[in-house]
Structure formats: C-alpha cells, structure tokens
C-alpha cells in the first residue's frame, strides 16, 4: 500500500499492485534532484555558495573577507527589501513595475516632511510609509476592483508615481548633513555595527528580518496560504471561499509599505534623499525574484529563493568588479546569468518532476 515514493501516481496505484511501480532504483543524482525539487530555494542557495567559492578562489582574500562579504549584503539590501515585496506580487501571478517609483516617492516624502514641514523625524517616516502604502492601495484597487492586468496598471503607475516624485520634490536633493541635523532617524538604517571585520548595517538586518517575517507569514498563516491559492488559480480560490479581491489588495498594500521601508533604508544607505534614485529598481527586483526561482505565472516560489536571488546578483556584480571587468561585460554577464539560472532551475524541475 505504500505509494509514498510515487506521489504522482494516481488512484490506480492504490491497490497492492502499486508496489510494482515503486521498485525502480533511484540513483544519487535522482535523489539529489528530488531534494532540489522539494526545496525551491535550494538551487539559488547552491548557486550563491558556489559562486562565492569560485570568486574567492580567483580573487583571493580581497573578496573572501568578512568585510567584503558583508559589503555584498549592504549592497543588495535595498534590492533585497524591494524584491521581497515583488515576490508577494509575483506569487499572486502579478508583477509590479512601480516598486522603484514607490520607494523613491516614499523617501522623498520623508525628506520633504522632515526638512520643509518641520515635523519630527518619526512623523516624516510615518508619512513616507503611508505614501508607500497608498501607492500600493491604488495599484491593488486597480488590479482587484477594476480588474486590470497588473502589468498594465503598474506600467501606468510607474510613470505616474515617478512624475509625482519629480513634481513634488522639485527635483531637489536633500543633503546628508541637513538630514543629520534635522531628522537623524531618517538615517537609522544606515547605521552599522561590527562583529570582527564584518560590518552589518541595520538595513541588512531589515532585509533579513523582513524576509524571515514574510517567510513566516507565507508559510505559517492563513493569509500566506491564500496568497499562494490566489496566484495558483484565482477562480478556484474564489470558489473555495477566499475573498480574492481582499487578498490582492492586501498584497499590493503590503508591497507598497515594504517599498516605503525600502525608501527609508535607501536614505540610510545613500545618506541623502534623491528623487533620481532607484530608476532601475523594478528591473533589479524582478531579476532577483526570477533568479530566485519564483514562477512568473504565480503560486510557486519562495521568499528565501528571492533573498538568494538578490545575493547572486550582488555576488556577481561585486566579484566581477573586483576582477576588473568592464561594466559592459558585467552587464552582459548578468544578462547571461539570468538566462542560465532559470534554465538550470527548469532543467532540475523537469528531470526531478
């Protein structure tokens, strides 16, 4: 009666004869593939480890030092945070092209409130986060109430939020020194602590904590199950009694808030508030999610995969820079990397299906 080893075997294998189907020997390779199939974040994790090892062997201690490795973490923190939000959206079979615009808009709101409206720093932060949440709400309502394709909605709001940022800020960059004097809380995520040579900014902690929190929410709460269900088959989820509209709106709002957090962390990272920042953050985030093994068709993927996906890009960017590669060649390599990562993932899934 054991069909534990053949989960795909349907009703017919329930009888005693089923055993005859399960006696095929599994080679170690097959077992590895099976493991990889069961753990979607495993492939990107392995790629991270392998690439660190390869770069360390090639470049030596300059790369393989606590300082450099934690530097990579700092460099991917913003993208890591934004792509955590992007993962939620893509899990619902959506896509959000406006994440970068929301992030910058939030940071600009924080800067303007703190510098020009004379409110305390934490009020400015709350205003910025609220702006992010509001942008997410607009996206979410257009997607769930007006039922427009997310690609279109966020293609539109990408322009709109971007334009609002420029108009609202008057293209003004707020200087780091001024922030330090008026509202140092805006720099919170830029502060760091050291453990030996390793340097961790609070932005890095935020990225890791946020990923852990979302992992918990996605896997251990009803909301998380609903997010997967909506992305998997929206109509089935609706018929099964899930309020799909609410789930969608909540996902876009949460992502908006996460982008707001990213905007706050961005101020910490670059010091100043610049309306010009983050113009490619949407592409970076989608790249991280995709390399992390989340399906653009929704319902399949993991937040940890995304974290490793962002790290892969970070490791490659820094590694190639330290190797002295030309920026154009780095761009070429990252392009090839995206394709190779997804092809590998696909191959593993196929063989271990």
């Amino acid at each position, binding site marked *: *009666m054991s*069909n534990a080893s053949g*989960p795909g075997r349907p*009703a017919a294998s329930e009888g005693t004869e089923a055993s005859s189907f399960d006696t095929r020997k599994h080679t170690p390779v097959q077992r590895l593939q099976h493991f990889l199939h069961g753990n979607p974040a495993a492939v990107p994790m392995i790629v991270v480890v392998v690439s660190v090892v390869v770069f360390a062997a090639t470049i030596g201690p300059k790369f393989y030092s606590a300082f450099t490795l934690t530097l990579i973490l700092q460099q991917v923190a913003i993208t890591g945070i934004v792509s955590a939000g992007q993962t939620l959206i893509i899990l619902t079979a959506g896509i959000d092209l406006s994440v970068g615009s929301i992030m910058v808009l939030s940071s600009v709101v924080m800067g303007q409130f703190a510098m020009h409206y004379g409110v305390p720093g934490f009020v400015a932060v709350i205003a910025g986060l609220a702006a992010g949440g509001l942008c997410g709400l607009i996206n979410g309502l257009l997607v769930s109430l007006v039922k427009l394709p997310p690609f279109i909605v966020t293609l539109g709001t990408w322009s709109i939020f971007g334009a609002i940022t420029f108009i609202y800020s008057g293209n003004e960059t707020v200087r780091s020194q001024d922030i330090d004097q008026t509202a140092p809380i805006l720099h919170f995520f830029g502060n760091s602590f050291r453990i030996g040579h390793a340097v961790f900014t609070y932005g890095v902690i935020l990225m890791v904590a946020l990923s852990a929190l979302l992992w918990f929410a996605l896997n251990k709460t009803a*909301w998380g199950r609903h997010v997967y269900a909506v992305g998997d088959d929206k109509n089935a989820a609706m018929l099964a*009694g899930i309020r799909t509209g609410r789930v969608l709106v909540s996902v876009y709002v949460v992502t908006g808030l996460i982008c707001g957090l990213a905007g706050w962390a961005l101020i910490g990272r670059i010091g100043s508030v610049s309306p010009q920042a983050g113009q490619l953050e949407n592409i970076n985030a989608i790249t991280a999610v995709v390399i992390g093994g989340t399906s653009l068709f929704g*319902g399949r993927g993991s937040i940890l995969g995304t974290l490793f996906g962002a790290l892969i890009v970070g490791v490659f960017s820094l590694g190639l820079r330290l190797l002295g590669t030309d920026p154009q060649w780095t761009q070429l390599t990252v392009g090839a990397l995206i394709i190779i990562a997804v092809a590998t993932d696909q191959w593993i899934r196929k063989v271990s299906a």
Partner: protein
Amino acid sequence: MDSEGFGMNTTTQPILSARALTKNYGRVTALDNTDFDLYPGEVLAVIGDNGAGKSTLIKAISGAVVPDSGEIRLNGQPVQFVSPMQARDAGIETVYQTLALSPALSIADNMFLGREIRRKGVLGKLFRMLDRQAMEKFAREKLSDLGLLTIQNIGQAVETLSGGQRQGVAVARAAAFAAKVIIMDEPTAALGVKESGRVLDLIRDVKARGLPIVLISHNMPHVFEVADRIHIHRLGRRIAVVDPKTISPSDAVAIMTGAKAPPEEGLAA
C-alpha cells in the same frame, strides 16, 4: 411559472428555494426566470442538456455568481449571497464542476482553505499562526471516515493527485463542513467506474446523516440510483420536477431534450 408559491403543495417547507432567477452573460441567457426547491433530507438531481444553465443555477445559489434578478430563500428567510464565502458561512457547501482546488497547496491546506485553524494562545492570536497538526489530523480523519481514499501523505500537493483523488478531496471538504446543504456539480464526470461508485456511496452516507444534497449529473444510471426527486432544466429554466420511481430514464431524457412535453403535474412531484 408560479413565482409566488413558496410553500408549494408539499407539507414541509423547502430548506433552500429560489424564485424567478435570471442571469444573462452579455447576450446569452443562462438562467431564464427559473425556480428551484430543495426539501430537507432529500437527494435532488438536476439534469439538463449541455449549456442548459445547471452550473449557473447552482453558482447563483452558492454565491459564486450574483443573479440579475430573482429571490433565494434559506429556511424560508430571504438571503443574498455575493460571494461563495457567505453561502459557505450559511452552511451551504458546494463541489464545483471545476473542483476549486489550488494545485500547489497540500491536501490539508485545500480542505481548510478560507477557514484555517489557528494555534492556541499567543502564537495564534497575535501571530495568527496555523495549527498544521490539527488541520492534518482532521483532514486525514475526514478522508478515511468517508473511506474515499488511502492517501499516505496528507501534506502532499494536490497537483500530484490523480483526477479521482482530487475529486475525492473536493467532495470530502464539502461533506466535512456542510451544515445545511451539499451541492455537487458533476462529481463523477471524470471518474472511473470504481471511483464513481464511491461518490454515490458518499451521497447515500451524507443523506443518512440527514443533510439534503443537490446532484447535477449527465449520468442517468447514477441519477436514478440515488435521486429522490429530479429537477429537469431546459433552456435556462426548470421545466419539470419528476419522481424517479414513477418515470423511466428514457422519458426523463425525452423531457430534458424537448422530445416530450413535461407532464402536467410536473412541478408537483
């Protein structure tokens, strides 16, 4: 037809009834001023040609589509469901023709979709953490109670199940949670002979527990095996209600396809 006579000529009151339901999809009239009645404890079969509007009828009753006009009553009280959730909360469980399962989620997750059990204490209250163990235990019990399947791993994804096993999960979910009514839309369409037999057994089990059942099926032998009354649907409306003990399957089919006029006393059966 008599869109007023909610009491009809039966002594008991219908548990679930509808009057003058209409639903248009653009230029297609899926429901055309139709009535519907389900009495306590009975198995009501709904038969009709492809596209007659059977699925739309039960979707309207279960909140999956909102009718353009008409009235629905549960235990005599008018109700208006605008989402499947509301019908479910009112005790009406439905097995849809399309099953409504999420392939990537586990069997237990699917059984509890939208009514998950949370952990006791702060983990559940504050962190809203799921009680996986309780859910899996319950799911396993329900599935084996019904004798429907012998699934080893209740945590496996529904997409790894065969069509028959999936149908079993959907049926078990409805049977486990129904408080008032179970509706099944073609629960045996994709099933083999053995699997179909099990679903029919389940229908008898549920009936024995006192719950009324609506069964939509193209399979006349199945219908005549379990139904107490047969609602015949044609061109978007109920044209007759017949008693399977007094009508032959071929006559029922003839009425359904329009080859034969519905009996005078058709609606009184």
